[in-house]
């Protein structure tokens, strides 16, 4: 810290430098910056990066087996696969975090060995991780220059900012150099991360699920920036679960399954169903689940859960929930769309008894439960799949049994009066694991040994058992692969058809549209509008996610169509 401060205080000897950058390598190319043209490598041009026969083993696990991958200049190459398919391992090998047990990395025609990420970035390979690695208390300019060999030794903030502005302009990534990272939106933070990698002359940019944290508009901005980047002869490796955006942005797609490469195809030759099949090895249909099977419960006339002008504030009086009114009927799935951090978390806390609201009323089956606690809500039949299962819904270090029974430990058969019966607890855990189709070799082993998908299935099944009236499902598919997401969606449908009201919070518009009977959009703690799914479209929801009220959003979306 001290060295940093010193570096920032001296500023007189800065001379604007022209660094060696992608510019000089591709200096001859003139690319109009407004409409990025396709970069066409000359025939016989070597791939920027070539992975040959990469294998990586962990005890008992084959993370990668004989994987080939070639990334050509000028292409966006999507890497697709389920959780645990080996995408991250492969990219960790390419960026020097892991060393392969077998195989070769060839960059620009030369075989390379990366002992660390520093080696990889000096060879022009940089990665933007899903969780940003920025210092939030520092400005954008400071973050860009942090730990960079080209940062001048003695330099002041205005010069840092000027350098950053110059870089941003050259690389066409709009950032505010003097802003603190903590004050930036997630989309802006991501741009800073990308700029940081590109400033170090990366020619291959690896992005791990970059759109998970973005609004549709921000995602479009990102895509534009990526297309410009590759038009200069660079390449992007784009890791994603989301089939639609992969189809939209990429030039070629490589699918991994079980650590092996299944296929590399031109995107033009791919379709969603085909990709889903390649990823999971069987046919998966993520389709409209709104239609009811015969025999399913109908939507009740009276709401089962009702919020009336609910206001929640943080410790210093800031508004978290702003006059939220929402009805959820039995047998109905109400989707909550919105970029994470716009009050969804506080909404789930309010309707599960985890947060005392400041004013307003919450009714459950007509009964006032505004001041009830978490135990009361559970007793009243409200299940809760929490946003961050490992942090709040589970005790990862404790046994699977202890975790499975957290909702029913106080009642018979697990407890009788004060007495807790471990054997009956284990029996209940077995029942829940069977319902979730999770094979558990040992119920005494710690929860964290299970995969994310299995953990989520167990949590979902555990909560479904107590959700006789309402289930609050916060991002139930976050971090899961296609197969597990499909299971989650069918769980919610199963509850809906049994006459339970479901509040379904998600960032995935496709999921929301496939599942919800109505969709409400949250922005800055407010409900921007609740609409029948059948009478809206992604455009309208997207506009509301960006902060427009229902009526104007509808009008604008309609105007855009004409």
């Amino acid at each position, binding site marked *: 810290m001290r060295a940093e401060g010193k570096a920032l205080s001296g500023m007189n000897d800065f001379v604007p430098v022209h660094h060696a950058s992608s510019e000089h390598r591709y200096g001859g190319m003139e690319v109009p910056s407004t409409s990025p043209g396709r970069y066409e490598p000359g025939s016989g041009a070597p791939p920027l990066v070539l992975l040959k026969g990469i*294998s990586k083993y962990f005890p008992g696990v084959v993370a990668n087996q004989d994987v080939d991958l070639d990334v050509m200049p000028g292409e966006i190459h999507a890497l697709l696969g389920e959780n645990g398919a080996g995408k991250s391992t492969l990219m960790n090998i390419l960026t020097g975090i892991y060393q392969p047990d077998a195989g070769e990395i060839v960059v620009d025609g030369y075989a390379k060995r990366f002992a660390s990420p520093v080696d990889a970035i000096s060879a022009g390979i940089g990665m933007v991780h899903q969780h940003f690695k920025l210092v939030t208390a520092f400005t954008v300019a400071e973050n860009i220059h942090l730990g960079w060999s080209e940062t001048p030794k003695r330099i002041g903030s205005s010069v840092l900012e000027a350098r950053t502005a110059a870089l941003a302009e050259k690389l066409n990534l709009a950032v505010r150099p003097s802003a603190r990272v903590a004050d930036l939106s997630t989309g802006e933070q991501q741009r800073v991360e990308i700029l940081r990698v590109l400033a170090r002359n990366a020619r291959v940019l690896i992005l791990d699920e970059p759109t998970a944290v973005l609004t549709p508009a921000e995602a479009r901005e990102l895509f534009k920036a990526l297309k410009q980047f590759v038009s200069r002869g660079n390449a992007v490796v784009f890791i994603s679960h989301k089939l639609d955006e992969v189809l939209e942005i990429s030039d070629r797609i490589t699918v991994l399954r079980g650590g092996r490469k299944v296929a590399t195809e031109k995107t033009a030759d791919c379709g969603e169903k085909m990709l889903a099949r390649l990823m999971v090895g069987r046919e998966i249909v993520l389709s409209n689940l709104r239609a009811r099977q015969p025999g399913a419960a109908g939507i009740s006339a009276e709401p089962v859960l009702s919020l009336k002008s609910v206001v929640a504030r943080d410790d210093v009086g800031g508004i978290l929930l702003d006059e939220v009114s929402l009805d959820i009927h039995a047998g109905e799935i109400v989707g909550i769309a919105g970029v994470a951090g716009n009050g969804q978390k506080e909404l789930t806390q309010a309707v599960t008894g985890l947060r005392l609201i400041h004013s307003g009323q919450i009714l459950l089956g007509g009964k006032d439960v505004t001041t009830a606690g978490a135990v009361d809500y559970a007793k009243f039949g409200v299940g809760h799949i929490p946003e961050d299962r490992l*942090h709040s819904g589970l005790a990862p270090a404790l046994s699977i049994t202890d975790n499975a029974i957290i*909702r029913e430990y106080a009642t018979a058969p697990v407890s009788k009066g*004060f007495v807790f019966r471990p054997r009956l607890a284990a029996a209940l855990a077995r029942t829940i694991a069977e319902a979730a189709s999770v094979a558990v070799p040992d119920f005494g082993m710690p929860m964290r040994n299970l995969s994310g998908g299995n953990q989520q299935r167990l949590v979902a099944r555990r909560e479904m058992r107590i959700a006789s009236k309402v289930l609050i499902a916060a991002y139930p598919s976050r971090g899961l692969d296609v197969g597990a997401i499909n299971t989650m969606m069918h769980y919610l449908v199963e509850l809906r058809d049994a006459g339970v009201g479901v509040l379904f919070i998600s960032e995935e518009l496709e999921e929301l549209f496939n599942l919800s009977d109505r969709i409400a959009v949250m922005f800055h703690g407010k409900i921007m509008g609740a609409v029948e799914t059948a009478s809206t479209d992604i455009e309208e929801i997207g506009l509301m996610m960006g902060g427009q009220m229902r009526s104007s959003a509808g009008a604008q979306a309609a105007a855009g169509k004409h």
Partner: protein
Amino acid sequence: MAIKFQRVPSAQPSVAFAARALAIVLALGVAGLVLAARGNAPVELAWEVLSSTFGSSFGLEDVGLLVTPLILTGLSVWVALRIGAWNIGAEGQFYAGAFSATAVALFIPGPTWLILPVMFTAGALGGLLWILVPTLARAYADVSELITTLLLNFVATLMVYYVATGPWLDPSGHALATTARLPHDVPEFWGIVHYGFPLAILLTFVIAGLLNYTRWGYEVRIAGSNPSAALYAGMPFRRRLIVILLMSGAIAGIAGMLEVAGTVHRLQGGISNNFGYLGIMVAVLARGSSLGVLAGAALMGVILNSGIILQTQGITVSAVLAITGLILFFTAIGNELAHYRITRTEPAAS
């Protein structure tokens, strides 16, 4: 062929046990080497220690006397750890328990069958009161109990020094720094080992039972492992924390009461013999297991007793502290290494 180390998230119990057993053996080995370098004959010393500890009932009785407070202070620290709290103050609570029990014995007249239970209660209450402020500070203001309990140790230690050399000094004039002999003794159970020994073991089983076979114990387990999960399920984390910490203080207080009423029979400065701090070690050695508390206390008891025997051979008591430190050090390394698996990989033919 390459040999690789791979970290696994949770060690296998058998590996963890082996690692700790190895750590203890290594620590004793290192201590032996140091003694050899000093000119002692470690093998003969070890034989001397083993034969005088296990060769006669006297040796075992000595160990039993040492093990009793170690079980209780170990249990005290261990129980706080169940909810994720570090009670570094078992030492102070031990003194507070001994102090309160002594006050009862010196100033309340009555038959032993009546006064002894009162002393026991007073000892437990003394320990409980000593941890009360750190407990409330942690529960309501999130002040680290680690610091507050530690600091109160010095207060308790000095308080006992003060009363034992000042107001409560033996009026007979025979002693310089102790109170008079207490009129009530905890009866003996085997040789010189008093009934505190079986009581400590019983208390360990009672607490283990509470934790494993009650709803309350399950809530403590969840709250100790992940407080957010406890709040999510609506468990009263704060109430459980308060009860567990008070319990922890009371157990250490009982240790102090038994030491003064069963073993030393007088309150004196330094009566705790570092039992409170050694309890931290017992709890660390025991990890998650209540039986581990008994085993850890037994091990520490044997080591302390060996120290006394070594002293007769001209080796200072500090050597014993150094050996216990080595054991803790090697155990920490062993616990970490137990997370690693060694694998051999054949480089693929290219």
